[in-house]
């Protein structure tokens, strides 16, 4: 059984809760190697999403993803706003107006999201950014196949270790790159938020099933 608009909406609401819960953690990760706003940026964006979901509930998975994208673009700011915004916009385009997403559609959407982030931010694996979580997540999702929950679980697992892999890295993109060698030894906040979002999506898919 696939993933309907209301499943996606439920998943986004759950993700908003996760972003609020992890706000301080993400702020503190960003405080160490950035400007201490990533958690607040994500919380602000997902909080804004909640009221938009209330006022005009989207009718397809793609519309939900598009609403998420435009909300993030217009409320998050910083690097994360346009990057996540583009990611979800590309994901929305990838799923088109499907009424239900199966595992393959989700994997395709994830791939499109990654392409969007790379198109905008030009980061590669090893630059210590969200790309370090997304690239392994997309590979794992595509390799996993199967139902939505299996695809997302594979993506979330891979994103988690991808995020962890940023710890020893010296940043080469984003604000952390100003720190040079001093950026090593810290988890990248954007990689962490990517991992948190994918885990939350995977949990939602498991519950929905």
């Amino acid at each position, binding site marked *: 059984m696939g993933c309907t608009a209301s499943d996606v909406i439920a998943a986004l609401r759950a993700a908003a809760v996760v972003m609020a819960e992890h706000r301080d953690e993400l*702020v503190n990760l960003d*405080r160490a*190697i*950035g*400007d*201490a*706003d990533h958690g*607040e*940026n994500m919380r*602000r964006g997902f909080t804004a999403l909640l009221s938009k979901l209330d006022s005009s509930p989207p009718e397809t998975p793609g519309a939900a993803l598009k609403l998420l994208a435009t909300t993030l*673009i*217009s*409320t*998050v*700011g*910083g*690097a*994360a*706003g*346009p*990057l996540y*915004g583009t990611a979800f916009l590309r994901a929305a385009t990838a799923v088109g107006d499907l009424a239900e997403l199966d595992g393959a559609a989700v994997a395709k959407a994830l791939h499109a999201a990654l392409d969007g982030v790379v198109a*905008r*931010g030009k980061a590669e694996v090893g630059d210590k950014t969200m790309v370090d979580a997304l690239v392994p997540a997309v590979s794992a999702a595509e390799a996993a196949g199967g139902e939505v929950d299996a695809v997302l679980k594979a993506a979330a697992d891979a994103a988690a270790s991808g995020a962890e892999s940023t710890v020893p890295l010296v940043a*080469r*993109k*984003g*604000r952390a*790159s*100003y*720190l*040079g060698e*001093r950026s090593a030894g810290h988890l990248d906040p954007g990689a962490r938020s990517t991992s948190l979002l994918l885990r939350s999506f995977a949990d939602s898919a498991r519950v929905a099933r």
Partner: protein
Amino acid sequence: MKKIINDPETVVLEALKGMQAAHADLLTVHTDPAVVVRADAPVARKVAVISGGGSGHEPMHGGFVGRGMLDAACPGAVFTSPTPDQVAEAVKLTDGGAGALLIVKNYTGDVLNFETAAELAAAEGIEVRSVVIDDDVAVKDSLYTAGRRGVGGTVLLEKIVGAAAERGVKLEDLESLARKVIGQVRSMGLALTSCTVPHVGEPSFALADDEMEIGIGIHGEPGRQRVPAGTADDMVAALLNPIVEDLPFSSGDRVLLFTNSMGGTPLIELYLAHGIAERLLAERGITVERRLVGPFITSLEMQGMSLTLLKLDDELVELWDAPVHTAALRWGV
């Protein structure tokens, strides 16, 4: 955290309201989305000069909105670049039919958000050009970083480009002028204390009583190096030498020297530092022809300073001297 605020969530909005109340003759604050617009905007047949960035750097940029400088400023959340719809709205509100020049500081977030805004504005049929300022010599400019940050040079750039726009210079020439300024302005900063972002509630970094961070940006991010604090002579030399050697500035050059407080450093220390910088430049045979001293691009209540040097020629001197009437910079009017 002790601040004169009511709630971290509403700081930016409430400060904008206060700004509106204080400077109704100069500017109009729009709040949804947040844009600070010159009171007489749009000015017909004039290129709109627009900038923006995270809040917490006051008076930048809202304090530079007015005749002879910015047509609009887009304030983001504290230390967070504004969103594209703020910038797009600013372009719309200030469109006098001659296009808009966006002045973007080189941070990934600012660049990406202004990029999207430029696309949105273009879609509305307004001609938009962007320039990215990256004057911070503390950051290695290489393929393996996000490049140099935009810092103190931004203030000088906005003044000079704003003056030219006021005189009716066309978008294309304005863009060239901006690139020229960016090409010959360099900055570097240091912090004696950190700052506390309202929504964080704790200092962005910790510094012992005998340490300073050198090569900081303007977002409370740690610098490249932590060194013993030392004397004012040491501090000023530590900022000035890398700046001078970077461009390089040479004997015989005419410059504007901008001695900036990061927010919490009092004027008595700033003047003291400025005097040292003037002396060191004189020793190198560099002529300081214009100067700006004060808190103009800040990091909340951070104690510290930055120095900016801009190489001058007659054109830039004339544009610098041209009348400006904003909340933070005013002369000739």
